[in-house]
């Protein structure tokens, strides 16, 4: 035991002796320099600059720049002979404005159909919330329903369009035993079967639209509030009206605002089904018209000469829809139900 202590002491002395030599040769361990406040700030600035420079430059060019350019484009026309744009004042905006009120060759029919599409979308909103509520309430089979209802968000929409097209072309005539029935006829102004069918198809696929966000919002509802409803003997529907809707009203407001914003831009599944109408161009809504003007039929894009008209339309609609959107938001926030 004594021997062991002696050995350990010897080792310790040896280590100190080595350390002494090391200090003599290389100098002792210097105390760590404390980072000055300015260097900390400098490091932070470097970090933030490196982190933010790309997203901000990207935003400046491809959002701000894009929209400024779009406004400028609305006041330009295209010279086909010289293949260049020139400023033409309000010419293009005036052309679009006039076109909006002309039936047949103009866009009045498209505007009407955009209105119908918008109203249908607005009517779908409460249904979407209700479907999410049913899943949230854990109705029997809710787990299974959740997966099936989520399918339209997972399966490519073009796959549904393709299956829907063949079902409408081959399945429906077989079911109704009428071989000539063409529910996708988008060109007949009398029946407008194409418009109605695709609108219903869109509603069907959008049955559980926004479920992801609504479920997220509903999960924030306090259990106490739900318990209060139970004590008040509220039924399934009353709980939805008196508890769930007020609790998630900000989310509903957002979706309503988005629906308003889409009045002029939505082309739903019309482009997927019809493209630009092929050899006899036929567009269904305003959004569809302006998209086709620029994108063409999806194979050959529309020429540059179409850019000013599309930009002028966009400019005109933004002037209408931007304040309207903010007004709707303001009114819904002011007069909508509150959680209290």
């Amino acid at each position: 035991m004594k021997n062991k202590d002696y050995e350990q002491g010897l080792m310790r002395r040896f280590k100190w002796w080595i350390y002494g030599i090391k200090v003599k040769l290389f100098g002792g361990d210097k105390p760590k320099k404390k980072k000055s406040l300015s260097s900390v700030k400098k490091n932070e600035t470097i970090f933030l600059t490196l982190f933010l420079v790309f997203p901000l430059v990207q935003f400046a060019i491809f959002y701000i720049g894009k929209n400024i350019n779009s406004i400028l484009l609305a006041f330009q026309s295209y010279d086909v002979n010289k293949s260049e744009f020139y400023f033409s004042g309000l010419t293009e905006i005036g052309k679009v404005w006039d076109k909006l009120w002309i039936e047949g060759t103009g866009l009045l029919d498209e505007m009407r159909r955009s209105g119908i599409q918008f109203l249908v979308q607005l009517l779908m909103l409460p249904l979407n919330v209700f479907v999410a509520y049913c899943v949230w309430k854990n109705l029997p089979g809710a787990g299974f329903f959740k997966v099936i209802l989520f399918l339209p968000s997972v399966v490519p929409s073009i796959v549904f369009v393709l299956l829907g097209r063949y079902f409408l072309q081959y399945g429906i005539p077989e079911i109704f035993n009428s071989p000539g029935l063409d529910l996708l006829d988008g060109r007949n102004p009398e029946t407008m079967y194409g418009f109605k069918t695709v609108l219903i198809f869109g509603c069907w696929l959008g049955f559980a639209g926004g479920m992801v966000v609504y479920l997220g919002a509903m999960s924030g509802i306090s259990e106490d509030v739900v318990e209060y409803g139970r004590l008040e003997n509220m039924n399934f529907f009353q709980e939805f009206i008196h508890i769930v809707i007020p609790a998630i009203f900000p989310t509903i407001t957002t979706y309503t605002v988005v629906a308003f914003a889409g009045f002029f831009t939505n082309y739903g599944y019309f482009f997927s089904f019809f493209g630009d109408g092929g050899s006899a161009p036929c567009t269904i809504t305003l959004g569809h018209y302006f998209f086709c003007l620029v994108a063409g039929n999806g194979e050959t894009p529309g020429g540059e000469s179409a850019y000013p008209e599309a930009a002028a339309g966009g400019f005109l609609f933004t002037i209408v829809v931007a304040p309207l959107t903010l007004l709707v938001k303001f009114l819904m926030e002011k007069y909508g139900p509150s959680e209290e």
Partner: protein
Amino acid sequence: MAKVKKKKTFKLDVFAIISLVVIGVYCFLMLFLLGWGLLSSLKHQMDFKNNIFGLPQSTAVNNNFGWRFDNYITAFDIFKVSKMMHTYYLEELFLNSLLYALSQSFFHVATCLMTGYACAKYRFKLNKVIYTTAVIVMLIPIVGNLPSEMQLAKFFFGGVNDINLLELCIMKCQYTGIYFLVFYSTYKSISWTYAEAAQLDGAGHFQIFFQIMLPLGKSAISAVFVLLFINYWNDYYTPMIFWSQNPTIAYALYWFQRGNRAASKPILMAVSFLATLPVLIVFVIFRNKIMGNLTMGGLKG
């Protein structure tokens, strides 16, 4: 400690029963369409036309009708899209889709994450401007700027429908939108004390981000990445306009179905299901992550 999940209880009243029936009917119709498509994809073209709703059948004249599982193999040989000088077969279309979805998701997540994290965790002059801009951009709709975007693509990248993938990602990865807010709220809810402890040990800002904050936020990051991946895999509008020389599978399906190009509808349906397979696999693998995060508070980390 095991979590005790409180189950919501309710009386199954008449409204609940009606709702259940409506949702049940909807789910049946959804499964019916998909089931019909799947069944049709296993038929011969003639069998599909003459026997729309029945099971695949062999006839005395044509006993090669039957169950045509080989449609899924034939699709790889005959489903092709010709662009310029190149013909894209199914495997190349899949590869294009994969590259497109992965790169777009990566860039989108990266820009939203970087700005969301910086705004949530650091005080600097532009902080409020960045946050407010992100919210305002979501609220104010600006309509009809596609022609302008095409002009910018031409100006910066020298073309419209043949720009390369990196250029397309740079053009599209805007930081504003819902996912910026998701990352902002995720990092706002994570305590900075972890970072302070690391700073005492001499860690820099990059080390703190990559070694501490990134793992802490990985739940939200992966959920957003998966959602974006599914979104971009299914997107055919953007590739159609800006990347049409490298068609993706979704764009190819649009191209075929709109022009009624394919001679064999069952093969086209087989391709549809093949195109769905990758996103379905991703969904099944990450279902709990997505659904769990979503149902527990809207994509929280």
